[in-house]
């Protein structure tokens, strides 16, 4: 896994779809349109100053769209979660394609809050969308409808809008059907421009539950950004070492006492830069989080990215952004079918290079296969017992010799029933804990419930252990059987996950690989108890140690449907607990 960021493994990105034809058009976005965007920005600044409510804001956006003659409307929505209700208002407008049937659509969106965090408002992003609406309306070459969406808050606004658009309203969302509907949305661009000006355009691409958009979209955007806009694209907001010649040391994780020739080595800088991208990618993907508003689109099979204007002192602003978005829309407009040609499974190590699935998948699969073999080995071992018996050789003249020992291997039964009951019980326990975490009472009495859950989950297995049948020499010890089935199950889980969400599989391989394989009974009670405690912390320790993560994971599950939280509770933690029980069983 450490090899993933090495530049040699990456290959250059390329455009696979013939129809895209990126960066081959003249753009007509000009200073007049920049002026329109500036005017919108002043109006928005006024809105921020006057502290208008979400509803008033949406109404303002609707009015602005209506003034252009677009079919505009607002959407009010309410999510019900364990922590109360979340509500907001979206504004959107549909620009019908003048010469096409309107069965296909593209989305340009901006959310009220920016990805940059800390409550940064996406005022300039919204201004860009409003002025683009005015600008794009004057062209008759759109083969798809263009939908402009200004979503409330950061994520849930767009989530409500998309669900209403596709008619997949979950039970905890209350919203009215949308007034204006267009065709099937193929691609979407989300604009995030919160700073004053920018030097690079960053691309965020991770979607919910580890989904990624087709790489052609990112590659086309990179082409267009480079050739049409004349400014470089970056992955996330990470600037490349070449762009940070003098400031790289501020970014680098290498301590300052390392010799200068190491810190300045281009290979090492390149490695560190790529490693940073990979870590950020895994951080988003493993938790199933999306790295921006675009990530909500992927579940509806819409390829979307967020264009993030990396805040800087200059030199670019509305002019460059508008040109690039115009050109990108022309490219998206050229599509004849959904993006399908390029890669859906990849890791972008730098803007121009990526790792194919074949290059990174083995790192997780190898661990998984090793666990499978270890588990099967345990299973075979459990079936045989070595008996040492004394054999007296009746040969003449050999009485004074020591009696020889002879090893024999004998079959023994391997009762699986108790093992299976143990495993199912741990998973049921996980389900119970997860339900508790999602309940309203947990949220109200967090300080009470966290230690209580921790105590319960760590105490219940030792308490119930005596109920299991005792080991007898005729049958294989249940701890060995449990370990073998535990390893096999974990290996299967990792293999399956590696195809769905590589980052999560990689994290599972890291956290479960060695601990599960080395779980064993120990002769002394204290050692085994200590080991059990360690496994308990590995399984459930996040309850205490990472409260913010718990909260965000549960919010993601309840509002956005990210299954990271249930996965950890119902699959990951029980698997580690089973390894802990292996230690306990041996000692008892």
């Amino acid at each position, binding site marked *: 896994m450490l090899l993933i960021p090495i530049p040699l493994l990456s290959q250059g990105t390329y455009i696979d779809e*013939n129809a895209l*034809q990126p960066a*081959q*058009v003249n753009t007509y976005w000009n200073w007049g349109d920049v002026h329109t965007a500036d005017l919108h920005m002043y109006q928005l600044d006024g809105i921020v100053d006057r502290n208008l409510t979400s509803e008033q804001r949406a109404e303002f956006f609707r009015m602005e769209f209506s003034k252009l003659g677009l079919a505009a409307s607002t959407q009010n929505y309410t999510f019900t979660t364990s922590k109360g209700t979340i509500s907001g208002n979206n504004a959107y407008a549909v620009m019908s*394609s003048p010469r096409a049937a309107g069965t296909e659509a593209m989305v340009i969106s901006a959310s009220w809050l920016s990805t940059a965090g800390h409550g940064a408002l996406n005022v300039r992003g919204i201004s860009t969308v409003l002025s683009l609406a005015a600008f794009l309306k004057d062209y008759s*070459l*759109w083969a798809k409808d263009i939908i402009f969406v200004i979503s409330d808050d950061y994520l849930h606004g767009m989530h409500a809008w998309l669900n209403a658009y596709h008619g997949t309203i979950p039970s905890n969302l209350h919203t009215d059907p949308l007034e204006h509907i267009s065709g099937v949305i193929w691609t979407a661009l989300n604009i995030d421009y919160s700073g004053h000006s920018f030097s690079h355009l960053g691309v965020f691409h991770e979607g919910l539950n580890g989904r990624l958009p087709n790489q052609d979209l990112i590659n086309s955007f990179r082409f267009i950004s480079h050739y049409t806009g004349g400014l470089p694209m970056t992955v996330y907001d990470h600037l490349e070492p070449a762009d940070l010649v003098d400031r790289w040391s501020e970014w680098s994780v290498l301590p300052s006492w390392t010799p200068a020739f190491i810190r300045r080595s281009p290979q090492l800088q390149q490695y560190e830069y790529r490693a940073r991208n990979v870590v950020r990618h895994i951080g988003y993907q493993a938790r199933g989080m999306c790295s921006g508003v675009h990530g909500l689109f992927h579940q509806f099979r819409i390829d979307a990215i967020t264009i993030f204007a990396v805040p800087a002192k200059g030199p670019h602003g509305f002019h460059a952004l508008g040109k690039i978005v115009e050109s990108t829309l022309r490219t998206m407009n*050229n599509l004849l079918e959904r993006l399908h040609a390029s890669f859906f499974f990849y890791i972008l190590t730098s803007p121009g290079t990526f790792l194919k699935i074949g290059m990174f998948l083995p790192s997780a699969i190898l661990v998984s296969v090793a666990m499978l073999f270890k588990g099967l080995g345990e299973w075979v071992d459990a079936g045989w017992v070595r008996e040492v018996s004394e054999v007296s050789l009746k040969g003449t003249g050999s009485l004074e010799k020591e009696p020889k020992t002879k090893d024999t291997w004998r079959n023994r039964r391997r009762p699986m029933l108790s093992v299976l009951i143990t495993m199912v019980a741990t998973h049921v326990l996980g389900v119970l804990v997860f339900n508790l975490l999602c309940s309203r009472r947990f949220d109200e009495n967090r300080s009470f419930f966290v230690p209580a859950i921790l105590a319960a989950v760590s105490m219940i297995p030792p308490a119930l252990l005596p109920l299991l049948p005792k080991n007898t020499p005729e049958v294989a010890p249940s701890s060995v059987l449990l370990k073998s089935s535990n390893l096999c199950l974990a290996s299967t889980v990792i293999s399956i996950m590696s195809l769905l969400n590589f980052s999560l599989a990689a994290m599972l391989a890291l956290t479960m690989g060695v601990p599960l394989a080395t779980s064993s009974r120990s002769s002394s009670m204290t050692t085994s108890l200590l080991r059990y405690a360690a496994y308990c912390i590995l399984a459930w320790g996040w309850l205490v140690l990472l409260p913010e993560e718990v909260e965000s994971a549960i919010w993601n599950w309840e509002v956005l449907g990210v299954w990271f939280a249930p996965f950890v509770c119902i699959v990951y933690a029980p698997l580690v607990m089973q390894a802990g029980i292996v230690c306990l069983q041996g000692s008892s």
Partner: protein
Amino acid sequence: MFPMHFQLLQACLLLLACLTTLVVGTSNSSTSTGEHAANFFGRHDSTSGHTNNWAVLVCASRYWFNYRHMANALGMYRTVKRLGIPDSNIILMLADDVACNTRNKFAGSVYAEAGRRLDLYGENIEVDYRGYEVTVENFIRLLTGRVDPSMPRSKRLLTDDRSNIFVYMTGHGGNEFLKFQDQEEISAFDIADAFEQMWQKKRYNEILFMIDTCQANTMYSQFYSPNILSTGSSEIGENSYSYENDNDIGVSVIDSYTHYVLKFMEGINKTSQTSMQDLFNSYDPVKIHSHPGIGSDLFHRPLDKALITDFFGGVAQAEVFPSQEDACLIGHHESGSTSLPFAPESGAPSLPVVTSPSTLTVEMHVWDSQWKEVRKWFSVFVVGCLVSWVSFVR
């Protein structure tokens, strides 16, 4: 006043006299009207022996991003039409989905160059096979003439054994195949067999096969029928590249090879004596970015005698046949020189377009032409004298 008038009269009289001598001389020296006809129709110095020209132009791809292929075919269409092949003799197979594509900023127009000076999709375009009709089956049926009786004449290749056919194909292809609309392929063998059937059924006199696609030269590698001259844009293993793209249309507008062929053709008119050899000499692999190929092994005429207009022009070339009495005499003279597979047989009166009068004489006296020269220069001299005399008198 009067002398002036008199002088003018004198001048007129003199001029009249001059003209009279000229006319008398002409009528005296005129060998025959048949000779004239032969001179007139035979001015191309052609050895092809064809009497009608046809063009089959195929754009085998579709979709907006293949704009350039549509422009290729339409560029060829414009050229053959300009050089005189009528629409009735042009079969144009075109997906035809770019001119009115919603993505086309210039609706109803197709341009083949970046400046957008010449709209190839003007008001006078007849697309015979459009959209989904452009299939391998339809193409082969068209060539071999195996069409439904209900098929209109505009969709048929009504050729005979005196037809010169220009077949142009463009699209995406590979080694010995050409893709039709992302759905099916035609192989080099299919086309070769279709041409052989045409030959056996006497459906052509000569064929010029031109193709612009990747690895185009492989497409004519399997031909085995006589009188086919073929040329392609690129060798095996080579791509054919587009020439340029227009930044307002947003896609490539023409392929390199076709661009240079069309550029060469723009310098050709209906009476041009330029030969196929000149066209082939104009190929520049450096500019085209691929190596165009020429397949002339099945073609029996020297390339510098094969005119461009034999294939691209719509020349109504007439054959001049002697009358029955002189047939034997002429047969003597011509039999040695003909190298054509369809050398006119003197006893077949069904074919001739223009029959000559009986006074046709074959011998062309050297003296005749000299007398013509003398007369020409004499009349020039007389006119010159007259003009100088008039000006002096004034």
